[in-house]
């Protein structure tokens, strides 16, 4: 068995062994081993030139990653958490995402940015954001959200091979997830995956909410409702085909997304289903998202704010009942 954390670490290790242009930079990736211990031990193997601790300067070390990528390197930049990436947003939106198009294809930015996302660990209002939906709004970026151990490992190599910037969102509650790392080859980063087949309703989730959707599907199954669970995996570009294929069969869809409901990625999925599969729907598409509130610290309030399997079950019940 391998944890999600280990899978990520081994993927970095493999990439760094395979290509000397790859290096890791970010706050405390070195002696500390990474805030979430992802890079533990890598400094010893690769040394401080390639496992580079940065000062607390998010905008500049992300920008430096962009510059280094434009100049022949294949940086992996770790932004400790998505909460801090707001300080680097200008560099991501105005430079990383834009340079290829704006320069008429003269310069590309083959950069990978990894960050932790999500709530669930009682870290309160400033450390619990799920802003991957924001990034999925930006043309020029590719957005990945590994939700399994296999994806945690297998998404990095194709992300590094991508000639354009790729952001990888790692949900903070997944690092201890244990799983079989069955496939040590690169995975397909263009497609969503059906994680559980079903015929009655499609549950669409990714990253941190994949488990929520699968738990809900189990519960529903006990009630005789067979839910198909789709793991989006890639949030930009979205794999409409897999989603619509499923909805056309089940005629019902619920999106489970940890982002705040208004303006969530779930809204985009809902709009697309309307646009592409309206006449196949037996019920309005529904969303189970986070309550629209800065995340409170106490566990009972945090759990109340987050999408729960019961909320998914209730949403399905409303549309099938």
């Amino acid at each position: 068995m391998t944890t999600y954390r280990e899978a990520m670490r081994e993927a970095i290790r493999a990439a760094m062994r395979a290509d000397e242009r790859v290096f890791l930079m970010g706050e405390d990736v070195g002696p500390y081993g990474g805030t979430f211990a992802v890079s533990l031990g890598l400094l010893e193997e690769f040394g401080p030139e390639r496992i580079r601790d940065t000062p607390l300067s998010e905008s500049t070390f992300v920008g430096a990653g962009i510059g280094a990528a434009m100049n022949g390197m294949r940086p992996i930049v770790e932004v400790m958490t998505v909460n801090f990436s707001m300080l680097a947003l200008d560099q991501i939106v105005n430079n990383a995402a834009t340079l290829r198009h704006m320069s008429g294809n003269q310069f590309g930015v083959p950069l990978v940015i990894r960050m932790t996302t999500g709530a669930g660990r009682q870290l309160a209002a400033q450390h619990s954001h799920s802003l991957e939906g924001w990034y999925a709004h930006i043309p020029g970026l590719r957005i990945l959200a590994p939700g399994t151990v296999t994806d945690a490992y297998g998404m990095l190599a194709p992300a590094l091979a991508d000639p354009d910037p790729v952001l990888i969102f790692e949900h903070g509650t997944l690092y201890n997830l244990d799983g079989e790392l069955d496939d040590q080859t690169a995975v397909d980063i263009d497609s969503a995956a059906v994680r559980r087949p079903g015929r009655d309703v499609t549950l669409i989730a990714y990253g941190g909410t994949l488990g929520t959707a699968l738990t809900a599907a189990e519960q529903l199954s006990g009630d005789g409702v067979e839910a198909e669970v789709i793991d989006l995996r890639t949030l930009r570009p979205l794999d409409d085909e897999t989603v619509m294929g499923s909805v056309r069969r089940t005629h019902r869809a619920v999106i489970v997304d940890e982002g705040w409901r208004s303006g969530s990625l779930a809204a985009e999925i809902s709009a697309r289903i309307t646009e592409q599969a309206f006449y196949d729907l037996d019920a309005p598409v529904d969303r189970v998202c986070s309550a629209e509130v800065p995340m409170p610290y106490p566990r009972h309030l945090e759990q109340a704010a987050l999408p729960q399997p019961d909320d998914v079950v209730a949403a399905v019940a409303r549309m099938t009942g």
Partner: protein
Amino acid sequence: MSVTATNQIAPTGQDGHRRDLLHQMLRIRRFEERCVELYSAEHIRGFMHLYIGEEAVATGVMPALTPQDAVVSTYREHGHALARGVTAEAVMAEMFGKVTGCSLGRGGSMHLFDAATRFYGGNAIVGGGLPLAVGLALADRMRDRQGVTACFFGDGAVAEGEFHESLNLATLWRLPVLFCCENNLYAMGTRIDRAQASTDLTGRAASYGLEATSVDGMDVLAVETAARSATEAIRDDGRPRFLEFRTYRYRAHSMYDPDRYRDKAEIEAWRERDPIDALVRHMREAGELTDRDLSGLEADVDAEIDAAIAAAHAAAYEPVEDLTRFVYAEVSP
């Protein structure tokens, strides 16, 4: 001898002044030692950053402030809150996530707020509090109020763009901000010389044209003297000042940190300079403190914190129905 559990410090030179400082440091130290146990017992959750070793800074700075002044702090702010006068009970309940906490339990360890003492948090974004402090001071200036805003941040924060922007703006606009840099030599696991091209932080600050002084942050009397002279100067000419407090945290960065990046010997060397031990020694030598006095202080502190913990245990959680209250004000425009 007995003291009450408040943040009142007798004026410098007056009887009881050093005793009060000692009491305050003991109180902060003991509070956090108990927090460690409570964290292990899972009464406190999330991120928790301890101030143990750095008590002299908060303890020495706060007496230089008046109730009209404001304080902006970081996620490592138990000491600041307690020294500023937020009650141990309100802070402890907050860490339990109880509704009697100083932020209704919503903030936890990183987000202590208290309007009564003008304690503006509790900010978990490194550097994020500096612009707020500039703005608080701007309002005081524009409204012709006398307040000074004391803003605490770490050595790591000095690398952030907001540090630069805030020092520039406060100096340019001559705003009454006391920038308090707690240089504990590390930002998480990154030693200062691996994050700052120049570790001369006062030199950096002075390049904006504001007066900057480096202070022994392990000596509460030195801290207090420096803070008093800086706040007086600010009240005098309205301009900001920068103080660097050289200090050290004995504990790991947070409860999650396995502390792999430092030498035990380094920690030991700093413990030799422990601010509480130093003051105790000093007072003993001056004949100001007997063993009984010290036990008395410790007993007082223990009693206060025991009571705070008991109250936190007994307190209620905010009802789940109130989850979305106060996202917006409840009175409409």
